[in-house]
């Protein structure tokens, strides 16, 4: 009880100080990015993030292969050039964290990246050690966002992450799922925990999240990161042989990848989509999708119906 009282007193004090500072002058970051097209505010702070990020599952797991490491660095370089910030990884993704660390060092981009990683271990006690290992692989002073990967041991890990946030060792806290799995539990956690972000699968054909999770995220002020925008490439491959509708140019989509990304990031609950790629031309294409024009709701329905009927 005692320590709890102390904790909340500190939180209240911090909150008052922050509120005072915020009313006096908005944070520089927010001001600078306010006008940037293609950014979205993180609901819990208002800090703005580019609406397209970069995933690293499979694509960045290249081991020590120098040629492939250089290719990944080039992808990161064009990602940053295109205005990107959020890179997502996990200790589950083989050497991907080390690849990102390599790229950040080569590009001197540690300050540019919005570092997003996960904790993924069923042994709750080894969470902090795993996070520290991940941080060292990235070579960042601290992570911007840490998420509980696929809700593995989520109670214990969330506790750790909230404590880290309190201590200033991470800026945002979230949870992830994919493939439409575990949405019931996901929803319960979203209702009960003070999350900054959730990460889930959503695209022009996998639309289950529209039912409950996306509206709930808006209601609760939780940022949404969208994984598997292209169904790990299956969707873009399938659509490759189909013609883009003539009206795609009305939303500024020059390719199926852009068509899909624009569909995703135009959902009002979505903060950011995180396609993964090994290719410079693809990362450029994906980053180019963040700008206007974006579809309105009627157009979004039309886009989804078009793909469904192909």
């Amino acid at each position, binding site marked *: 009880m005692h320590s709890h009282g102390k904790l909340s007193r500190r939180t209240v004090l911090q909150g008052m100080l922050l509120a005072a500072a915020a009313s006096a002058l908005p944070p520089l970051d927010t001001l600078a990015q306010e006008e940037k097209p293609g950014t979205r505010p993180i609901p819990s702070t208002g800090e703005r993030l580019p609406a397209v990020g970069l995933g690293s599952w*499979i*694509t960045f*797991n*290249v*081991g*020590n*292969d120098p*040629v*492939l490491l250089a290719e990944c660095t080039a992808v990161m370089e064009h990602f940053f050039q295109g205005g990107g910030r959020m890179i997502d990884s996990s200790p*589950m*993704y*083989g*050497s991907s964290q080390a690849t990102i660390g390599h790229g950040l060092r080569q590009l001197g981009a540690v300050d540019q990246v919005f570092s997003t990683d996960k904790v993924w271990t069923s042994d709750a006690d080894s969470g902090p050690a795993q996070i520290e290992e991940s941080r060292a692989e990235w070579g960042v002073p601290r992570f911007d966002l840490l998420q509980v990967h696929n*809700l593995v041991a989520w109670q214990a890990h969330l506790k750790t992450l909230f404590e880290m946030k309190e201590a200033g060792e991470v800026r945002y806290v979230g949870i992830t799922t994919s*493939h439409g*799995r*575990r949405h019931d*539990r996901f929803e319960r956690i979203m209702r009960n925990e003070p999350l900054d972000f959730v990460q889930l699968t959503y695209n022009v054909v996998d639309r289950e999240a529209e039912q409950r999770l996306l509206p709930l995220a808006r209601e609760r002020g939780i940022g949404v990161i969208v994984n598997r925008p292209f169904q*790990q490439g299956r969707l873009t491959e399938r659509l490759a042989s189909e013609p883009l509708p003539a009206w795609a140019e009305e939303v500024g989509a020059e390719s199926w990848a852009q068509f899909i990304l624009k569909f995703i990031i135009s959902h009002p609950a979505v903060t950011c989509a995180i396609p993964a790629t*090994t290719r410079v031309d693809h990362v450029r294409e994906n980053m180019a999708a963040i700008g206007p024009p974006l579809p309105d709701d009627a157009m979004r329905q039309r886009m989804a119906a078009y793909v469904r009927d192909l």
Partner: protein
Amino acid sequence: MSGVMSEWWTYRAEDFLLFSPRVYWRLIELHNQALWPWQLLALLLGVLILASMLRPRPWSDRLIAALLAAAWVFVAWNFLWQHYATINWAMVYVVPLFVLQALLLVGIGTLKGDLSMPARWSIPRILGIALFLHALLLHPLLPAYAGRSISTAEVFGIFPDPLAIATLGMLTAAIPRHRAWPLLVIPGLWCLLSWLTLDTMEVRGAWVPLLAVVAAIAGRLWPRAR
């Protein structure tokens, strides 16, 4: 737990594949380049084992087990631990099994001398020698069949697939058969894992390690000639 149980069937094999085929074959290729020309020595040792299987001598059974054990340790350390593990963290759990296989080979084969190569032809012996021959000579040629560069050739003693298949071959031929069974488990499991990996990558010839397991089990279960 119930959540895990109810969602397991939504997974496909490709959800567990951590790397792309391109990364995998480049890993093999770079490993081959780094080791060249030691592949030749490994092949030579393989020929020595094969010769000892065809014409067993009093000392050769223990030697075969010792050479295979050395290869299991070498492949575990050199390929699995130092290279494959960089793209596949599951190898951290596989390496101890490879070392265990080496210990079993040394314990049962070399120290106790409980594994003998038969001198007379039988179905198990034919299958065993065929498996060993495949591992030694045909397996490195699979890239030609699969449409890959020969620089991705997997040679006995350097890469786990031909090593596991060769070991299955030796154990399929070995007598008495009840001594061979416990040693079949780890190479058999490796071949199944490899089959799943290659099949998920849609590699032509992915069925080869699976066929090796089937052949080994068939050979071991073959009714004894009277």
